[in-house]
């Protein structure tokens, strides 16, 4: 049958193996009620799902485990805050997302056969840069008590602008050395490495910058609700914002320099590094300014909105990137889908569950004809 979207001849299955379009007439029978997210077809492409966006290559069954773990971690942070165990909560906030990312990378075998270099260029780079910026910020940002009573221009400049911009640059620099690697030439790879670098950076920076606070004792004096909210911001919102903004910016770079020339403009300006990079930097700086000028519920809400924007952008980039990359390939022999386990013609999407086969753990990704293509040249 002819796919109504990509207009290629494809097997008459639930999903187009080329573009992932829902081929059944009745849209209401689609798992998401509309055309699903390429990396997780049972979800809408516009659904602000953290797990399927930040961890797009997870098998569907594992997503629930990650969701549960994230919720468990968030609950632990809140409980520690409520019981005034702020230093422990702070450590929890710093390690929660990095821990999930490490487990994710291990789970999906993203390092393939080069774990050490890739690990260094993503997690270790992010963590090392985070430590460096954490130390720098302790010296550059006014740490004195004056900060408590007046947000000075100095504080705005350093804490709200320059350090976030430096952080952005270092987080983005983490995945860039992987750009030339052919085995990591998907937009999804760029986004994933960018997110991993960012999450490691945010956690390390928090731990380094706040190391002195660990000397405050197990249960220092403090109001519990503001602390619980702040820990939630630091442990969930800030890492997600960083992961999504850096992931999207890295994705844009991958799209620009690794995707086929005809696919490079599918995201419009959102996929162009000249626009995406400043936009991502703006989201990071916006997050810093939100933390500088607001507190408690308002801070959490605005950070959530900032992170939501970044998340939807990254999700869109992953979705369109996965849709566009494979339009000209020939349909191959049946392979086993890593998501639903059923046999599907080898191409880009599973004919039965609609998941992008690129968004599967590396060990389950079908080899694709362009995997050996020469490095794309910028146009």
């Amino acid at each position: 049958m002819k796919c109504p979207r990509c207009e290629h001849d494809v097997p008459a299955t639930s999903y187009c193996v080329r573009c992932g379009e829902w081929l059944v007439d009745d849209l209401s029978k689609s798992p998401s009620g509309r055309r699903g997210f390429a990396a997780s077809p049972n979800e809408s492409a516009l659904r602000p799902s953290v797990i399927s966006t930040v961890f797009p290559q997870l098998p569907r069954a594992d997503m629930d485990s990650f969701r549960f773990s994230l919720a468990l971690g968030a609950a632990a942070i809140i409980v520690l805050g409520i019981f005034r165990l702020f230093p422990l909560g702070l450590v929890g906030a710093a390690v929660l997302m990095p821990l999930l990312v490490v487990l994710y990378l291990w789970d999906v075998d993203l390092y393939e056969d080069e774990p050490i270099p890739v690990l260094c260029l993503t997690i270790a780079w992010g963590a090392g840069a985070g430590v460096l910026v954490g130390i720098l910020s302790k010296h550059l940002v006014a740490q004195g008590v004056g900060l408590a009573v007046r947000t000075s221009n100095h504080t705005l400049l350093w804490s709200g602008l320059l350090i976030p911009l430096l952080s952005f640059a270092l987080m983005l620099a983490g995945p860039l050395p992987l750009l030339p690697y052919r085995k990591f030439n998907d937009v999804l790879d760029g986004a994933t490495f960018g997110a991993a670098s960012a999450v490691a950076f945010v956690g390390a920076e928090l731990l380094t910058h706040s190391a002195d606070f660990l000397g405050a004792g197990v249960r220092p004096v403090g109001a519990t609700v503001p602390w619980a909210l702040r820990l939630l911001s630091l442990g969930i919102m800030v890492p997600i914002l960083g992961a999504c903004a850096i992931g999207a910016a890295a994705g844009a770079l991958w799209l620009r320099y690794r995707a086929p020339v005809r696919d490079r403009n599918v995201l419009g300006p959102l996929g162009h590094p000249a626009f995406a990079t400043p936009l991502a930097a703006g989201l990071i700086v916006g997050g810093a300014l939100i933390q500088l000028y607001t507190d408690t519920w308002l801070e959490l809400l605005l950070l959530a909105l900032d992170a939501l924007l970044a998340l939807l952008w990254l999700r869109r980039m992953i979705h369109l990137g996965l849709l566009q990359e494979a339009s000209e390939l020939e349909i191959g022999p049946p392979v086993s889908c890593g998501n639903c386990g059923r046999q599907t013609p080898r191409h880009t999407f599973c004919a039965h569950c609609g998941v992008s086969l690129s968004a599967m753990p590396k060990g389950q990704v079908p080899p694709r004809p362009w995997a050996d293509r020469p490095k794309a040249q910028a146009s």
Partner: protein
Amino acid sequence: MSTLTPNPSIADELWSKLKPHRFIALFVGALTVFFLIALVVILIVKPGAATPPCNPDPTTHCGTPPTIPQTPDSLTAADPPVFGGKLYSNSQLRFGLEYDPKTWNIVSSTASGVQMNWHISGRPDLDLVLIVQGVPASTAMPAQLLQAQISSLKGNILGLKADSSPSHALLSPDIGYVDQSATGGAYAGTLDTPQGPGPRIALLSMAATDGTITLVATALTTSSEEIRLPLMGVADTVLNTLTWPSGAQAQTISSRSSAARPGARNPRLAAANPGSHYLRRTDRATTVDLSLVLRFRQAALDRYLQQLQDPRSPNYQRYLPSGKIGERFGISRAVLARVKQRLAAAGMGGIVTYPQRTSLRFRGTAAAAEALFDTSLGDFQDATGRVYHRPLRPPTIPSDIHGSVVGVTGLSNETLAVPADIPNGVITPRVSAAAYDIAPLHKFGLFGQGQTVAIISFASFHDSDVRKFDRDLGISGPAVKHRRVAGGSPVGAGADEVNLDIDTIRSIAPKAQIIDYEGPNGGVSYADMINAIIADGKADIASMSWTNCDDALNLNPADRVATLQALRAAVARGITLFNSTGDAGSYDCQRHFPTVHRLTVGFPVDSPYVVAVGGTRLATNARGAYAREYGWEDPLSNGGGGGGLNPKDRRPPWQKGPGVTNKYSNGKRQIPDVAAAADPDSGFYVVFDGQGHGIGGTSAATPFWAGSTVLIRQLARRNHVGVGGNKTGKLGFLAPTLYKLASSPQPFPPFHDVRAGGNRYYAAGPGWDFSTGLGSPDVWNLGRDIVRFLRTR
């Protein structure tokens, strides 16, 4: 490159690799490991328990807790006024304050107030911000303004909330000596930045009104716990200069009511030395220094002491030599010999007796002491790490000497004498001479020639420091003598207190012979030191700037008895001992036990046998002349001149005069008797460890009074007057004379009646008050009045 084989078993392998429960277990396990590591780190680096601002540990001098670096002017050619800072004035609300532009800078000034940052170069670890905000009194009461201030800070300080730790409590809020409707408290939170939470922040905020405007003053610091109080003292320095639009600070507006503060009675302390724990039995070979308190004819001596002050008595002002005191009121010579024999038989040595027969000092091994007094000694360690010994069960006086001995001291060396000095600003001798009108005495050539004054020290000093002090001031006089009691005391811990005492007296009476009685802290009691002065008979003016919180569990009852007995003998001998009232205001025990917030006083300063010297804050005009004086109270740093009610001893008959009987009086001895500059803002110039310093505290006011009295004694001698017909200038026990002078109009006003300020609970006011007693001296006037008084008797 990975290869995909169309084999369904791959998916099965994957499922088995990461089954949901496995993954979650892995996640929870990893997170738990992180938490455990973090917990270990937190426990390792956690802050220590709050320590007393004055740590009674001989290795770390009590009087000098962590200090902030000074920016000393040292001695300049032109002595500066006591406080000559820059003025800030708020034209809208018409309040003002004075600050030192070398360390403070105004970072924002609005119609409603000012924010000032304190900094000192090279010490980024020390930071302090002071905010003073105000509104018209009709707009908000102090409590409302305080609440608004805290709310406004919550946005920038993570988790800001009231700090309920008793050791951080703000007990006596006031701003610029105005405490009308005053309220305040301690708060704590965390400095937060987008990069993460940072250092802990401590905050003290207080609000008050003068009826015209309402002000809230807030001091914040991220500096460590150890340095917090001194830093808050820096904020106190500025707030004490605050002028209200109504001029309220000149005449304290006080809401201090007659109703006692909750818990302000004097229940016993919960524990004598919180945090102490038993280590072991004291080594039997350990040498212990002990004293027997010998039985005295107490009632007879008390009668005699009263007669000494009664002009109708034939014994009026007939002070006794120490030998006579022993003969008339002590045990007989034969009994004393039997006691000595008994001690020698028990293996004790180094037996020292005094002619006044108040007590008997000796030393021996712990084993011999345990056998003699049927007790056992144990070693304990307190929270500071100091090891001391004390009896594990009450000692018993041997029956064969029971009739001659009322107690034994030295079996416990738990309690140490505590000096009362606080480093800070500088009063040069020229300033004190001008402000307290000493200059006329100097002008007449009275510099203490031929006079002797004793200092009681539980430490020693370097002679080179005194020589440098002399060089700095361009003075000369007889070298200070070391009189070692019980082996003396090393230089080191407490040297600054000793130097303060010496230098302050020397700056007033440089030609006087100073004898420094030096005993080991914990090794000798107050009684031993006082007895030594009585026995030597060389000085009838003495200065002691060491005290202890007067509480039954803090003081060994036998020590208390021994000290009072020695002091009685000193009075009978005609010795005036000036003693400091302490630097914690009306909460003396707080200095030793930060969580004790009851109204308490020090010992032996609260006894009726000393002249108790309280503290003021002296302000001079640009020429250095006396301008104003306030009862010293630093609400943020828990500082203030001691004062209050003795928990046990009755008020002596001579303590009467305007203001003495007031709403707080309960028949017990009331202190202080007099006062002088003690606020560290107006500290005295001192040299120790080869460096010039400014040191305040009632430790400074006390030798100031002793030195001034030396000059007055010399004036009396020059005028051929003295007590009991003695024409050598002898003044006898001076306290009754001071009250008599204050009770009737004098040709020369002898005292500056301090009517503003307070001491953290009691307000200064007209006449005698619990903050400044009769007031500070106009030394020239006081001298002339005393001479006239002696001449007419």
